[in-house]
Structure formats: C-alpha cells, structure tokens
C-alpha cells in the first residue's frame, strides 16, 4: 500500500519510476539491429537536448525507410533525412505543426521527435511490422501477394530518348516477342524449381523436429550438408530471438512508457502554451497553396479523375437503362393493370347490384 502511494506520488511529481529505464531499454532492443537507438538518446530527447536531435532524425529516417521499403545508406545527408522524415510523417497523417517547423539541419527538436516516434509506434505498429518484415527466412516461402508491387514505375516512367527518331513497329513486335519468350522461359524455370522443391521436401519428410513442418526446406538441407556456410544464419537466428524476447518484455512494461509520454506532452503543453498561440495565427496565414509539383498528388488526382469519369459514364448508362426498363415495364403491364382495375370496378358494380354478400374482388 505504501509502495503504491509512493508510486502514485512519484507519478504526480512527474518523476520517472524504476520501471521506465527497463521499458525504454526493452523498446530499444526490440527495434531492428540497424535502427537501434541507445536508451540514452530517448532520455536526452525527453529533455529536448540538441545533441540527441541528429540521432533521433536518423532513427526515424531509418525506421521509415524500412517501412517503405526504400534504400538508404550510412552517408545520407542530414538534410535529406530531415526532408524525408517530415514528408513521411505528413504522409501517415501526423499533423503537429511544430514538427514541420523544425530546422532542416537537424540541430534541434529532439523532444518533438520523441513525440513523433511514439505516435508512429502505435499508429504504424512499428515494432510488429518491423519484426515481421525482417523475419529470418529459413523455410521455403511463397507469397500470394497480387498487388502491383512489381516496380511499375520503371515501365510507366520510361521516357528515354533513343537515337532514332522513329521506331519501326516490327522492332516493337520483336521486343514483344522476346518478352513473351522470356515469360515462357520463366514459366519453365518455375516449373522446374517446383519439381526440385517437391523432391527435396519429399525426400526429407519426417526429419524435422517441428512436427508441423515435417520436412526440411532447401536452406535447412543445405545447412546440414555444408554447416560451415551458415554460421551467420545461426547468429542472426539468435539475435532475432533476443529481439523477440525484448519485445515481450516491452509489452509487459508498456503502460509505463505511455504514461511517461503523456507527461512529456503535458509539459510541452504548459511550456509552449504562451508562445504557441501567437505563432499559430502567423502559421495559418503562411499556409502554402497546393503545390503542383508533387508527382504523387498528380498521380492520385489523375486516378481520381479517371475514376470519376468512369463512374459518371456508368451512372449515365444505368440511368438510361433504368428509365428504359421502367418505361417498358409500365407499357407492358399497364394494360394488364388497367384491365384488372376495370374488371375490379365492373365486378364491384355488379356486386352492388346483386348485394353486398361477397367481396373477393379488389384484393390486390
């Protein structure tokens, strides 16, 4: 009871509890090896130390690049990193204006970046996504993805200026033929690979210690044959296991981290309240016009235009069709309806003349 009260008191005083370093440490270890910050970086960022800014920009840069499947190198300039991170955060819907105002040389703003990092952590499910993406592949895998992730940009954007002015259509036909031949060859290759795979699976059936799997994959079979080639695989496997265990630890300590982040936000709100409200008005007036130089936006707008054209054409077509059908319907059945009405009314008259005994009519 005492301990609990002390805990609560500490929280109110906004001092981190003993669990926080453990939480932060677990978080850092759960991130992929190439994007692993030191726990100190996060602590320094909490106090908005400028020294942590560059590291934090880099951290976000690497993480976002991994998410987006892009390439990056150690030597990418800080300016490019900053631009990329800002753009990526905008893309995912992070709307804090203070972040966009941070200097482009990465010299300040570690606390803002800490907030952004935490936001991404939840919004993009950063840890899970990166774990899944970087998962070590020891088995034979096949994806059933039918998305267009085949780098269509290389095909659509191809606008090289060839040496000749005009292109003979037979040349194009020849290229087309070669392309088809290539697909045929790929098909044959794939079929062969299937056969090989099947054989390996068949022959090694019953050997795997994991009963669910039952047989070895190509990698594992090769591992048995030439174990010396696979030392690195073993190391990677072990480091991945450690990362997973860190993830589990993090899940236990998560509440502490989020509470801490809340306090950071509250602090910032208090500090920034006075000056921010003034900046905000200025900011809004400065809003730039929709830039036309963004290829992504153009692509999207193009898609929207096409879609709306198609839909409107379809709407027109349906409108006509429905009107037509409705008219035909009435035309066809009007006679019948009128007749039945007449019959009904004549029946009524007849009955009235006879007597009010039966009224089976007019039961539509």
């Amino acid at each position, binding site marked *: 009871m005492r301990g609990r009260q002390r805990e609560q008191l500490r929280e109110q005083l906004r001092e981190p509890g003993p669990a926080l370093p453990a939480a932060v440490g677990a978080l850092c270890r759960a991130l992929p090896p190439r994007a692993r910050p030191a726990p100190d970086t996060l602590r320094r960022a909490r106090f908005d130390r400028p020294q942590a800014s560059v590291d934090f920009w880099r951290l976000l840069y690497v993480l976002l690049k991994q998410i987006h499947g892009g390439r990056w190198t150690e030597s990418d300039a800080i300016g490019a990193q900053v631009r990329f991170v800002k753009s990526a955060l905008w893309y995912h819907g992070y709307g804090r204006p203070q972040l966009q105002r941070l200097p482009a040389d990465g010299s300040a703003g570690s606390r803002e970046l800490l907030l952004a990092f935490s936001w991404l952590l939840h919004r993009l499910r950063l840890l899970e996504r990166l774990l899944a993406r970087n998962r070590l592949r020891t088995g034979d895998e096949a994806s059933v993805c039918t998305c267009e992730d085949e780098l269509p940009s290389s095909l659509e954007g191809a606008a090289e200026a060839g040496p000749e002015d005009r292109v003979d259509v037979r040349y194009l036909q020849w290229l087309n033929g070669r392309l088809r031949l290539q697909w045929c060859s790929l098909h044959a290759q794939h079929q062969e690979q299937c056969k090989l795979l099947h054989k390996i699976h068949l*022959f090694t059936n019953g050997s795997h210690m994991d009963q669910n799997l039952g047989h070895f994959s190509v990698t594992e079979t090769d591992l048995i044959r030439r174990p010396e080639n696979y030392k690195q695989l073993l190391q990677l496997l072990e480091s991945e296991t450690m990362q997973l265990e860190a993830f589990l630890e993090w899940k236990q300590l998560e509440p502490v981290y989020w509470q801490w982040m809340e306090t950071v936000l509250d602090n910032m709100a208090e500090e920034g309240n006075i000056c921010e409200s003034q900046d905000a008005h200025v900011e809004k007036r400065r809003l730039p016009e929709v830039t036309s130089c963004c290829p992504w936006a153009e692509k999207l707008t193009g898609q929207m235009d096409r879609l709306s054209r198609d839909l409107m054409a379809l709407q027109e077509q349906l409108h006509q069709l429905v009107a037509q059908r409705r008219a035909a319907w009435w035309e066809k059945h009007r006679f019948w309806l009128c007749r039945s009405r007449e019959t009904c009314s004549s029946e009524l008259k007849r009955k009235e003349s006879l007597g009010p005994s039966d009224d089976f009519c007019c039961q539509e």
Partner: protein
Amino acid sequence: MLPAGRGRRAAAALRAALGEGAERRRELERRAARSRALLRLWDDEEGERPQPGSSTEHEDRPSPKELEELELLNRALEKALKIRKSILKTPLEAQGATAQKWAGEARAPKKAEELQVPVPVENVLECRKVRAGSKKPLLSKKPSPFQLRAPYRTDPDVKKLQRKVPARCVAQGPRTAGKISSKGMTSKQGRSHRTASGTSAREVCAAAEPQETLGLSESAPNEQQSFSGGDSDAGTNSIAAGKHLLDAGKKSCGFLGESSNKVDTAGAWGRSTSPGTGTLQEKGSQLKLPLPYKKAYSKNSRAWERCRLCQTSADAAAARTRFMEKIQMTFCSPKLTPSPAEIEEELRGLQDVPSRLRQYVEVEPADPPTLQGEYESLLTLEGLQTTVSQCLQKLQLLRAALESQLRLRPDCTGDVGSCSPACHPARGQTCDSADMLAVPLLCYSSLQELRDLFALKLQVSMLHQEIALQKGTITGSQNNLSWKRPTTSQIQLLALHRQPKNPTLCLRVLSKHSWRSGSL
C-alpha cells in the same frame, strides 16, 4: 511507323520489362542451382554446371542472321498469300481453291501452336491431289473445331492445328491449357479467328515470327536447308517453311525442356548408384539438423509463438489511447481527416469498382422472360445506380480530403521525387492484417498443386506487367503489337485475389500427404 514519342516510349518500356525479366531469371536460376546441388550426390564437390541461359537476353536488337531469316520467312509468306489470292480469283477451281485457301490459312496462324502435327500439314499436300469429292461449300461452313473428321482426308481437318496448347516453349508444363498459352494465341482465340481474314492472320503471323526466328537461331543449323531449297513451287515452299517452323517449335521446346530433364537425370543417378554413396533421396529421412541450429531454431520459434499470442494489457491500451488522443488535439486539424496514406488506400480500393459494376450490368438479361425476372432485374439495376452514386460521393470526399492534406504538405523544394515516401508506398501497410506476426503455413499435397500455384502467380505478374505496359505507352498501337487484352476471367482473377487484402504475408510451403488448409 509509329509516332516518334510513343514508339520510343513503348520500346523503352519493353526493354525495361525485358531487363526485369532477365533479373528474375537470374535469381530463379540461382535458387534452382542450389536445389539441384542438394539433389546430386551428397558429397559431390563439383562446381555448377554451365547454364543453358539464352545469350540473346542482353541484345537490344535482333542479330543480322535473325533479320535474314525473318526476311526469308516474310517472303515465303507473301508468296503463299499471293497464290491464295490468285487462286481465289479463278472461280472454276473453287473447290480446289478452297483446299489451297484452307491450307494457306492453316499455315499462317499455325506456327506457335502444336507440337505433334507435322502429319496434317503433309496431308494438306495430299488433299490437293486427292481432292475428295466433297461438294460442301467449305467457305460458308464453319466447322466446329472439336470435330475430328474422317482421318486426314478432308481439308477442314486442317483445323486440328489450332489445338489448345501451352506455348511451344513449355515442354513439360502443366496440362491445364490457358495458363501461359494465353500469352500467345489461346486455343479459343485461335478457333474464333480461324476464319479470320488474311490480314489479321498476317498480323498475327508477323507478331509471332520474331519469336520463331529466335527459336530457330537456338536450334540446330539444319534448318538452313529448308530455306535455301525448294523454291520451285511457292506453295510447297511455304508448306515446307511451315513444317519447318513446327519442327523448330518442337526443337526449341525440347531445348528448353532439357533443363527440366536435368533434374530427372539427377534423380536417376541417385537411384542407380550404389547405396553407400548417398543422395538426398536415400538419406533424406535420416538427416538431422546440427544441434546448435536445432536449439536456436526451437528457441526462436517458441519466441515467435509467444509474441504472436501476446496481447496488449488493458493498462497499456488505456494509457496509449490517452496519449494518442492528447496528441491528436495538438494537430493542425484535430478532427480525423483521412491521412494521405489512407486516401491512397481508399482510392486503390475503388479502382476496380467501375469495371466490376459494369460486369454486373452486362450480366443482366436484356429482356427477362418472366414478370418476376423483369422486376428483379429492375431492382438490381436500381441498386447498382445507388452504389455508383455512393462511390461518387466517396470520391468527392476523398478529393476534398486530399486537397486539405496537400495544403498542410511540408515544403519540399528541390528533389521532390526523392523525398516523397509516397513514391515507395509502404508495402504491407495497405495489406494490414490484425495478426502481423503470424506466418501461415501453406500445405500442399501434390506436385501439381505447387506447380499450379507458381504458374498462376506468374500469370498474375505477367498480367500486371501487360497492364502497366499498355497504360504507359499507348492506345493506337495496340493492334499492331497484337497484345492480348486480359479477358474477363483473367481480370476477375486479379480482382478476386485482391479482395482478401492480406497478400504480403509469406507462406511456408510444405509437403503433406493429406491436404491441410493451414492457418491461411
């Protein structure tokens, strides 16, 4: 000649596609080599065998020899068509003419097709002599392609040439037609165009010819003889050329089939050698993984399982929500507008709606027979109308959202391309499944299933590429290139597969003797 810009773009796009394909082939070859090595003698230290890779992959232009052969073929074809025309003009030999005509037409589209039909071609020759007293006006009749007439006596049997077929390159591919055959001329299409006019046949022929020449250059050199010889009778020549093309088709098929035969021989080695030497086949079920790996592996898989089952505690969820809400309040637009990522995602979902709706409209009968049918049809159409207007509304909202988001866009002066992460949209983000940490197992029970899986995947990639090429380059030049537009069923395949929205999960392919659905 195509207009300059379009032609260049098309050529560049095709070249890029060829480059990608070459890359894939290399990757595949690497993997296959690895697997092959495992199936050989276990202690076999010998290096990789030289690959029968096509050396023509890297050329951007056909070689002079190929151009020569192409010229010869073109000439032969022209001669054949001339003969056909001249014969058509003489009505006296109407029946004889028809024989020639069918023969001529048969020659034209046949090339990429059958493997086992030199026989009917020869019989075309025969029929000119036999001239069965068939009084049927062959021109007006459209014999069913499935009909097999009395053995090779009458002309229309020439239609047998249009049998269904995987493209000639696939020696041992799956029997299910229409997989890669759709790439060339499908059987269905072939049949429907069987009575096509000479011009379209010519186009088709011309398109396939470059394919032929490649095949020819790869095959043995005895083909040279057929070209130089037999020029006396243009008809015979073209028949010879035709026959030769079929043979070439067979050869190149055999050629490409060689690589797949290699596996069988490897297996055969295994079977024939004495027990002591050891191949995977013999030792496979007794193999054991090395102990360190075993330990690491089981630790790893247990950790994955625990992570997968791990839930967020209630405290954590509450604390997290509080933080997220607070930070959301500090955003420029505190209320939830779709983020650019979400806009893109929604748009992607709407992309194939028009085509699907159009299919539904087309399916509705024009004149339903019964009262009930009419009424239902009308209701359906009205329902579709509602759907369309809902989609349009959604599109409006997305447009507005995009505009408001673009206003908040960070200034990206300079290299817009490199800084925009939207250029590489987050893979796996759009395919967001609840259980990211699960890796489903795909269990298959026969080799055929595995083959079908890969064949279909390849077909999907191929169709994507075709669509991208068509989008990127053209409209008018499509006919010249005779690209086959994906048929309805193929589009449905695409759309159908897109729906589940969990496509980037990787599967483990296993072999089990009983089919297990796994945790897909």
